[in-house]
């Protein structure tokens, strides 16, 4: 079992993550990419800016990865979250897991993303083409 957790200001090299997760005992590799969406409802996004409370974000990501690993029998896992300014189409997060079977790999990715969106101290600020900026703090 191997695990890599990273916060970075650099573009995410997801092809490398897939190769890192490849193992002879896994029959499935699932890669999830979260990408910046230009249009949400009627709102247009010019760019997003992500910030993290890094020490706690890293610790929490590690706990999520460990929990998913024991629950879904993950063999290799990599989670990378990008910080700083990102434009539409760019990758903000990548989660890659390998498991013996695909059902577990899909379920693991789904659960990991749900947990990340719930508890990891990372925030995004949306800036519209008119230059209006808002930090996003979900109300539920």
């Amino acid at each position, binding site marked *: 079992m191997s695990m890599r957790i990273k916060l970075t200001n650099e573009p995410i090299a997801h092809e490398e993550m897939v190769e890192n997760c490849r193992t002879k005992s896994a029959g499935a590799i699932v890669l999830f990419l979260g990408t910046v969406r230009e249009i949400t409802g009627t709102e247009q996004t010019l760019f997003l800016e992500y910030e993290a409370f890094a*020490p*706690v974000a890293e610790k929490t990501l590690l706990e999520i990865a460990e929990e998913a690993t024991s629950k879904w029998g993950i063999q290799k896992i990599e989670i990378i979250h990008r910080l700083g300014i990102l434009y539409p189409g760019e990758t903000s997060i990548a989660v890659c897991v390998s498991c013996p079977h695909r059902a577990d790999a899909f379920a693991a990715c789904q659960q990991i993303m749900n947990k990340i*969106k719930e508890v990891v101290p990372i925030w995004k600020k949306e800036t519209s083409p008119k230059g209006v900026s808002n930090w996003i*703090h979900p109300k539920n």
Partner: protein
Amino acid sequence: MIKISVVFFAGARDIVGQNRLEMQIPALTSIAKLRALLIEKFPQLESLATRAAFAVNEILVLTDTLLVENDEVAFLPAVSGG
């Protein structure tokens, strides 16, 4: 009284106007009480504060945690990563 610091992120930092605040508070103040003190000081912080999580010295804590001298509290508003 004890001296602590509170660090703010994202929308909370914008409301407070700085990312770190030094405070003098009674010894053994709980996180819940600190949250009330912060709302008193910055009323606009209330809606973020009611849903915020807190860390003390980089460890997530529950709101009944008691603070001691030199603790660094992180005020973590509802997250939006991913």
